[in-house]
């Protein structure tokens, strides 16, 4: 479990805000601002944070679906940010993504079979007969009838479409899959089915997941480790159990207190988040969380807390622990 598959260092993605006659850049939305973490081979790393905190941007910058502003992404010892377009296209076989919206992520004009064969065609893998056989096997493996290959996406429900999206990600035998809120758009009952499927597939194919969610309860069971993001920055990262039992960052504590507790014996005080989420175009000085933090101190306004490992495997960025 300790072999590293992916190392993200100092990743930044700034979206320019343009104004004026010459469309000059007057500022930036710092969607991802200096993020560092590693993902071990075969594990599931959960990334959690409120809407707009930069989770999708992180996921997509890692895969270079959008070009990161700066930073390095080491995947299987190759620096993705420095790779040429063609070698990157080749390497894409090994890293895939599943999107949040099962309706928008499948082209409505093609039959499912064609959608699933396309990745193999692009990379010139297998013969046509092998491809269609593989499509059927994968559909079946993802809990769908092989005849689904002859239907169009609109003939399926959201959960079924998400299974198709997962099957598509598997066609190229990837080692890493970024799951960008794969269950957020689904009914709760369907959510757990999809999560179970993902867990089975991980076992079977030895996959590594980067599982993005906006809700801690979703990633709780599937994740080995969990990272908490706030306004484009990392707040805390620890093993799941550790994070739930011993949250260090005040933001994590607030998020945890919002999760309903199944055991009525355990009383937990709900920590309400004060104020609104600040705009990532104009983030607060110092610690980005200080405008809403119950423990904020003077230093929090002035200085940005450093990201450091306070216990083995437990990282946090907060002045309370420096």
């Amino acid at each position: 479990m300790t072999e590293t598959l992916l190392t993200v260092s100092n990743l930044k993605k700034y979206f320019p805000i343009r104004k004026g006659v010459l469309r000059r850049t007057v500022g930036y939305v710092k969607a991802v601002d200096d993020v560092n973490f590693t993902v071990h081979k075969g594990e599931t790393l959960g990334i959690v944070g409120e809407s707009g905190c930069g989770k999708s941007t992180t996921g997509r910058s890692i895969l270079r679906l959008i070009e990161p502003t700066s930073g390095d992404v080491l995947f299987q010892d190759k620096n993705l940010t420095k790779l040429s377009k063609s070698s990157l296209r080749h390497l894409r076989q090994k890293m895939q993504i599943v999107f949040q919206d099962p309706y928008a992520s499948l082209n409505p004009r093609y039959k499912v079979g064609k959608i699933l064969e396309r990745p193999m065609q692009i990379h010139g893998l297998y013969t046509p007969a092998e491809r269609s056989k593989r499509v059927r096997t994968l559909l079946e493996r993802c809990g769908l009838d092989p005849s689904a290959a002859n239907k169009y996406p609109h003939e399926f429900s959201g959960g079924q479409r998400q299974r198709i999206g997962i099957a598509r990600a598997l066609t190229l035998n990837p080692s890493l899959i970024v799951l960008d809120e794969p269950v957020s758009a689904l009914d709760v009952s369907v959510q757990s089915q999809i999560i179970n499927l993902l867990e089975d597939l991980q076992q079977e194919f030895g996959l590594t997941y980067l599982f993005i969610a906006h809700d801690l309860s979703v990633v709780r069971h599937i994740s080995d480790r969990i990272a908490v993001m706030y306004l484009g920055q990392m707040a805390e990262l620890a093993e799941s159990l550790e994070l739930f039992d011993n949250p260090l960052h005040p933001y994590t504590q607030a998020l945890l207190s919002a999760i309903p507790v199944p055991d009525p014996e355990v009383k937990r005080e709900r920590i309400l988040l004060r104020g609104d989420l600040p705009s990532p175009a104009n983030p607060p000085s110092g610690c980005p969380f200080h405008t809403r933090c119950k423990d904020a101190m003077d230093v929090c306004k002035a200085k940005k807390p450093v990201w450091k490992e306070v216990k083995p495997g437990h990282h946090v960025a907060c002045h309370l622990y420096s």
Partner: protein
Amino acid sequence: MNNVALEPSLSPGAGSVTQTKRKFELLKFVKRYPSVVIGGLIVLVMVIIALFAPVIAHYDPLKPMPDGLTQLGAPRPPSHEYILGTDTQGRDVFSRVLFGARVSLEVGFFAGLISLFIGALLGVISGYFGGWVDMVIMRITDMVLAFPFLLFVVALVAALSPSVHNVFIAIGVFGWAQMARIIRSQVLSVKELEYVQAAKSLGASAWNIIFVEVLPNVVTPVIIYLALAIGQNIMLEAALSFLGFGVQPPNPSWGNMIQEGMGYYQLAPWLIYAPGISLLVATIGFNLLGDGLRDWLDPKVGK
């Protein structure tokens, strides 16, 4: 699209029921989108006329008939022999109108294709790649839209020397801007969709994505616009020929027929009415078809 609604039921042994049902659906379609049907019929008739002009016409459109003029040398009015009368040189107007349909369609269609090709290429590049490429292309498009279109086309045809080919080249070369805009906006909306991102993450190249994922979604507005553009082009060709820069006599075009008949509007009004009404009906046909297709295929534009 709506062909789902037009599909007959699948229950076996219900042949006659399916048939009546199909008839019923067709009727419903005719009632709902009459412009598609009427416009489509007009266009169809025009295409047939253009294709079979030599078969339908009884006379040579270029040759003066031996009895084509009255004793006084005037054109003959419509009669049993010459359905639409004869012109000032004693040629059969009906035959000339039929062959004029050929020229109109040829110019309308090929000019439309040229515009489509240029517009699609620029619109796709502009929309998909964005950035400064987009900015440059869009400024050029604005510029072309600000051109006094007719004058430019006339000037270009005059410079190239008038002929059918040069007419459709000139119309096509200046007519792509609207097409480029439509396609660009379509590409812009498609490109952000997750399935395009998915294709990218699967390692597809930019042009592969454009051809496989983006372009199929552009087909509908292109068809709608092409129908409208052909109607416009037919009108332009007529205007050019009317001004003397299009099809050159003695070859017939509706525009130059009207021009030739202009001096005789009292004596022989059919010289103007025959090509004029043909032109009007043809343009109405293409406009109806285009508007109707928009109502039918493009749900975004409300009715």
